[in-house]
């Protein structure tokens, strides 16, 4: 899941200041799960903006809509008859959603209300933790499904560093040492020998250095 957090209201206000009619577009997927851009959050932001405008004696019109997915054309298409009626779109989608809407409606002013943060999991209610860097060359199979690049604070492929204490990272005592987790889990599975193997270096070119990454599959094309 892609996680995000709402920008400070002052920053949002500054971006939409020139516009009177605002269309707030939420996303019912990842950012709804992390309680930053779903239907509820759209409602809250719309209320805040309307109340704020009333306090400042500004005239504003705010419409709320939440798409099931803001990064897929079939869902974005729901904005077709709506978007022209508004001066600006305030997107509560992740960065991909904001750009997808702007791509489909190239004449529209589309601004982000969220700061897209990381790929992570819902650890418990109200807690989201980063666990994937989308490096494009996944090694989880070697490391008992614990990503050392993401979850080790030092990003060590050849850990542990020796600095952990009671299973916690020396960089952040609230974070479990990824390498302790890896070793303990492999030990439990009887797979410690995996750590003895020599692997080829990670292909970092899959993550960066070649511009925006693409996945193309002929079988999925129409």
């Amino acid at each position, binding site marked *: 899941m892609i996680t995000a957090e709402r920008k*400070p*209201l*002052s920053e949002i206000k500054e971006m939409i200041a020139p516009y009177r009619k605002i269309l707030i577009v939420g996303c019912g997927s990842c950012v709804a799960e992390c309680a930053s851009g779903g239907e*509820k959050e759209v*409602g*809250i932001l719309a*209320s*805040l903006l*309307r*109340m*704020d405008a*009333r*306090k*400042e*004696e500004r*005239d504003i019109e705010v419409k709320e809509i939440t798409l099931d997915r803001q990064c897929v054309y079939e869902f974005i298409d729901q904005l077709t008859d709506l978007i022209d009626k508004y001066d600006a779109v305030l997107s509560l989608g992740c960065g991909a959603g904001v750009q997808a809407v702007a791509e489909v409606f190239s004449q529209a002013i589309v601004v982000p209300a969220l700061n897209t943060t990381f790929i992570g999991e819902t650890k418990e209610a109200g807690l989201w933790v980063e666990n994937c860097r989308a490096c494009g060359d996944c090694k989880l199979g070697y490391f008992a499904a614990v990503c050392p690049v993401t979850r080790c604070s030092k990003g060590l492929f050849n850990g542990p560093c020796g600095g952990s204490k009671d299973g916690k990272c020396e960089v952040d005592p609230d974070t479990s040492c990824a390498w302790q987790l890896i070793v303990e889990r492999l030990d439990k599975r009887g797979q410690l020998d995996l750590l003895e193997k020599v692997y080829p270096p990670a292909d970092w070119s899959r993550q960066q250095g070649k511009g925006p990454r693409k996945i193309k599959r002929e079988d999925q094309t129409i």
Partner: protein
Amino acid sequence: MDQKSAGLKVTFFFCQQIDEHQDVNRRALEKEFGSEIRFFPLPCSGRIEPQHLMRALESGADKVYVITCPEGACRYREGNMRARKRLTFAQGLIEEIGLERERLELINLPAGTITTIDKLARELLAREALVGPSSLQAQALEGKKLGVA
């Protein structure tokens, strides 16, 4: 000055477990105060969401109470604790637009309290008003006078 004399519009979200006859008990009060007060019974105070509190303020409330059963006495175990967290979150939200956090208040009934919603609401309305009429309403009225709203 109490809240009634201050002319505040007050909204009550409340856990309906605190008064099994709330449906009947609040009617007299609703007739007496008309649109000045609004009641929203909840199956559990844990059902409250920040969005409900925003909508209440946006639609004219000067003061919003969330009344919960005593801590440790929630029929669904943790509902009143969730209500507290969500109200605190909503207080932070309204501060972002310059509204006082006191406009949202949690009333966590003391253990062993046996009361009715009308009695409780009257007690709360008789409390000293910590906030005046919302600047939102003042601006809306001013706007109407000026013909801009």
